[in-house]
């Protein structure tokens, strides 16, 4: 799975998260910061990760989530890591 596909999938997930600033979803890049740029509450990152597991049919480790950064590229890296492990 390519990074661009994951980014598109992530955008679909974010559309379903009411606490994410929906007006800012169109300009998302890998450098976008969930918390600083999208005003995502830090507690919501877990919810996004849980939805990503379903969407991409992967499973994150608890420790993966502990070390997760706040940028979109961190999330994409995590998805790829989980894919590789599967």
């Amino acid at each position, binding site marked *: 799975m390519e990074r661009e596909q994951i980014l598109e999938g992530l955008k679909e997930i974010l559309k379903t998260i009411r606490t994410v600033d929906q007006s800012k979803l169109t300009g998302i890049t890998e450098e976008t910061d969930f918390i600083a740029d999208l005003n995502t509450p830090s507690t919501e990152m877990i919810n996004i*990760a849980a939805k990503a597991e379903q969407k991409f049919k992967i499973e994150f480790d*608890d420790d993966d989530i502990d070390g997760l950064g706040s940028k979109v590229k961190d999330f994409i890296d995590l998805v790829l890591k989980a894919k590789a492990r599967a």
Partner: protein
Amino acid sequence: MSDKTAAINNLVGIAPAVVLSHGPTKILLDKYLWHSPEAGIVACYTPKERDVKDHFGVFRGVDQIEAFAQATIVSCGAFFERRKLGCTFEELKGIFDPIFFGIGPVRFHSYLETGDTFISIGQITFYKFRQVICNGRIYKTPKGLDLDAYFSGFNEERLLAYDLSNDFILVAELEDITGRALKKDLLK
């Protein structure tokens, strides 16, 4: 009941001090009354003199939230992790610290004074990646009620409906109380 018990089905009968990392003056929880691990928990506390000191004899709202969090997200989260890792609560305390992540709306309907016994009744709405979210309520209990006997017949249906007798007084409603266990080395 010892922390070394090989398998535990729930937290009832275990002293909160065994489960919680908090020191004795910070534990706002006396006893687990009912616990269904995937659904929720009921626990009680009676505010002590030290809890209301310098606050006109009233147990503070912020301490109600803390008491609720200890009874629900922290205790249930510890139960989940202990079960997952197959270790003791004492070993868990050496690995993780419970972190208060957030609270949603909280509405207070009444108040609590020294000697009032209250229950925290929490419904688990989310558990994953060591994060637990609970909604719930705090009720002042009727004086003299045998809480162990009362909750011995409790069940998940009653939990979800907050099905209690009319002499329980609603004190607070709490939503999205969120906590997470973080590894100690991440907090340094």
